[in-house]
C-alpha cells in the first residue's frame, strides 16, 4: 500500500516518460482552459465585486450562438463577429437590467442574481438553439485540426492536438491583450481604479455603468474563446456548464482578483488533477478528478487563506 502511494507512481513516471509528458501536456491544456474560465470570473469580480456564476453558461451560450448562427447559414467569420455583437448586447443588458439596480447589495445577493441569470440563459439558449449538442465549427473558423506526434527517444509518442496548441496560443494572446488593455488604455486605468475603490473612482468622474458593461463584455469575449476551445474538444452542449465549476478551485488558489493568479491557479489545478488522477486515482477506484481540485484548493486555503497572490489579511476592528 505504501509502495503504491509513495514509490510506484514515480517509477511509472520514469519508466514511461512519453506517457508522463502526455499527461503533463493534457494537464497543461486543461489548465489553460480552466484558467480561461477563471479569467472571466476575475475580470468581473475585480471591477464590480460580483462573483459571476453565470460565466459557465456564458461559455455555453457564446459557443452555441456561434454554432447556431453558422447552422442557419451565416458564414463562420460573420457568425463570429455577430456572436461578439451578441455578447456585447448581453453585457449591456446585464449591466442595465441586473447590475445597475443591484448596486451596493451584499455579495451573496449579487451571486444569486448571477445564478438567476444562469437559469435565464439556459432557458433562452435552449429556446433559441435547441437543447441538442452541437459540433464546434472548428474548421470553418480556420482553426487547426489534426495532431502531431513526437517521438520521445525510442520510448514512445507524445501526441499534441493542433487545436490544443491553438488554445494555448489564443489564451496567451488573450491574456497579453487584456494586460495591455488594463495597463495602457484610459478605460483600463479607469477599470483598475474602480477595482481599488468604487467610491474614489466615482468621485474622480469614472462612469461605473460604462466600466461594468465593458468588463462584462470582456468576460463575454473570454467566454467565447473558452467556448470555442472547449467546444472543439468535446462539443457545445449544456452539460459543459458544469465543467465551468472547475474554475472555482482555480479562483481559490489564485485569488478572486488576480489575473496572474487565475492563470497560475489554472495550471496548478490542471496539472494537479491529471497527475493525481492518473498516478494516484486508481488507488481509490478512479474518478477522483471530480473533487480533487477542490480538495487541493481547500488544503491550500487552510495554510494560506489569502490565496497565492493575495496579500496577508490583517484583521482590523
Amino acid at each position: 500500500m505504501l509502495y503504491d502511494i509513495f514509490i510506484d507512481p514515480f517509477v511509472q513516471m520514469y519508466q514511461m516518460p512519453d506517457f508522463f509528458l502526455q499527461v503533463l501536456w493534457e494537464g497543461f491544456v486543461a489548465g489553460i482552459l480552466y484558467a480561461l474560465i477563471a479569467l472571466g470570473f476575475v475580470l468581473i469580480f475585480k471591477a464590480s465585486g460580483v462573483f459571476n456564476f453565470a460565466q459557465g453558461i456564458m461559455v455555453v451560450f457564446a459557443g452555441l450562438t456561434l454554432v447556431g448562427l453558422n447552422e442557419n447559414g451565416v458564414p463562420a467569420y460573420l457568425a463570429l463577429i455577430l456572436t461578439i455583437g451578441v455578447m456585447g448586447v448581453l453585457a449591456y443588458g446585464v449591466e442595465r437590467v441586473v447590475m445597475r439596480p443591484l448596486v451596493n447589495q451584499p455579495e451573496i445577493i449579487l451571486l444569486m442574481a448571477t445564478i438567476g441569470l444562469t437559469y435565464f440563459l439556459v432557458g433562452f439558449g435552449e429556446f433559441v438553439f435547441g437543447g441538442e449538442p452541437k459540433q464546434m465549427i472548428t474548421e470553418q473558423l480556420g482553426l487547426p485540426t489534426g495532431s502531431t506526434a513526437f517521438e520521445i527517444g525510442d520510448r514512445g509518442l507524445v501526441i499534441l492536438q493542433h487545436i490544443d496548441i491553438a488554445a494555448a496560443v489564443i489564451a496567451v494572446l488573450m491574456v497579453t491583450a487584456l494586460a495591455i488593455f488594463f495597463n495602457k488604455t484610459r478605460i483600463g486605468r479607469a477599470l483598475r481604479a474602480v477595482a481599488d475603490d468604487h467610491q474614489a473612482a466615482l468621485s474622480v468622474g469614472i462612469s461605473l455603468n460604462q466600466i461594468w458593461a465593458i468588463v462584462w463584455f470582456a468576460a463575454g469575449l473570454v467566454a467565447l474563446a473558452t467556448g470555442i476551445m472547449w467546444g472543439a474538444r468535446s462539443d457545445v452542449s449544456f452539460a459543459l456548464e458544469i465543467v465551468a465549476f472547475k474554475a472555482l478551485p482555480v479562483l481559490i488558489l489564485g485569488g478572486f482578483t488576480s489575473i496572474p493568479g487565475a492563470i497560475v491557479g489554472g495550471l496548478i489545478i490542471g496539472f494537479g488533477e491529471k497527475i493525481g488522477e492518473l498516478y494516484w486515482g486508481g488507488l481509490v477506484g478512479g474518478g477522483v478528478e471530480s473533487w480533487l481540485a477542490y480538495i487541493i484548493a481547500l488544503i491550500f486555503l487552510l495554510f494560506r487563506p489569502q490565496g497565492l497572490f493575495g496579500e496577508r489579511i490583517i484583521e482590523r476592528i
Partner: protein
Amino acid sequence: MNAFVTEKTLPPSDANEGTERELLLRVDNVSLSFGGVKAITDISFDIQKGEIRAIIGPNGAGKTSMLNVINGFYHPQEGTITWQGQVRRKMKPYEAASQGIARTFQNVALFKGMTTLDNIMSGRSLRMHRNFFWQLLWRGPAEREEIEHRRKVEDIIDFLEIQAIRKTPVGRLPYGLQKRVELGRALAMEPDLLLLDEPMAGMNLEEKEDMSRFIIDVNQEFGTTIALIEHDMGVVMDLSDRVVVLDYGKKIADGPPEEVQASQAVIDAYLGVSH
C-alpha cells in the same frame, strides 16, 4: 462639564484611604508589529482596580492596537500581560471575555441584524448555560434562564434610558444611540475591566455629556474599572484618574491628568514636533 469634576475627585481618594490599591492589569514591555511595521514598542503600564484609565495619543499612536492586545485580539511578539495576578502572553479573545474584559469599538461593532434588546442580551451569552437540548424545549429551564437575564438587561436598558428602542433593529438607530447600545452590551457582560474605544467620537456636546455621565455612573455604581481611548482632551481630563500617552507606538507619559497635560513630550507630540 464642571459638575463632573467635583464628583470626579471622590472615588480615587476613597480608594486611597483603604489598603494599597490593587492592580487589575499590568502590561510589561509589550511590543507588537505587523510584518515589520512596529505598532507598539516596549510599552509598560498598569490599570488599578476601580479607576478610570485613559489612553491618549495622536492618530496612529497605537492606542487601539493596545486595547486589541489587552483583550487578546492581537498577540504581542514581546512582553507580558498580568491579569489579576496571572501572567499571560497570549490568549484568545473569548478567553479574555470570559475572564471579565469587555469592550466597545471605535467604529460601532453592533450586531446589525439584531434588535437593541438582542444586542444587549448577547452580552449575557457567557453567563447563560442551558444547553442545546433545553433550548430546543424552551419551556422550563431555558425559558427561566432567559427571563432571569432579561431582567438584568432591562435594568441596563433603564439605566441607559433606551427603553423606546428596545425592539428596533440597531442598524436603523442613529449613531449616538448605537454607541449607547454598544455600551449597554458591554455592561451586560458585567465586566471587571471595561475597555472603551473612543466612546464619544462623532458625538455632539449633549451626547458627550450623556455618555460621560454614564461612564462615571458605571464606574461608581458598579465599581467597574474602565480603560478608555478618547480624543477629546476636556473629557479625558475630567473623567480619568490617570492617563497614559502614546506616540508612534511608544509611551511618552503616564500619570494623573494634570501632570500629563504639563509634560513637554506630550505637548510636542500633539503639536507635531519632528522627532
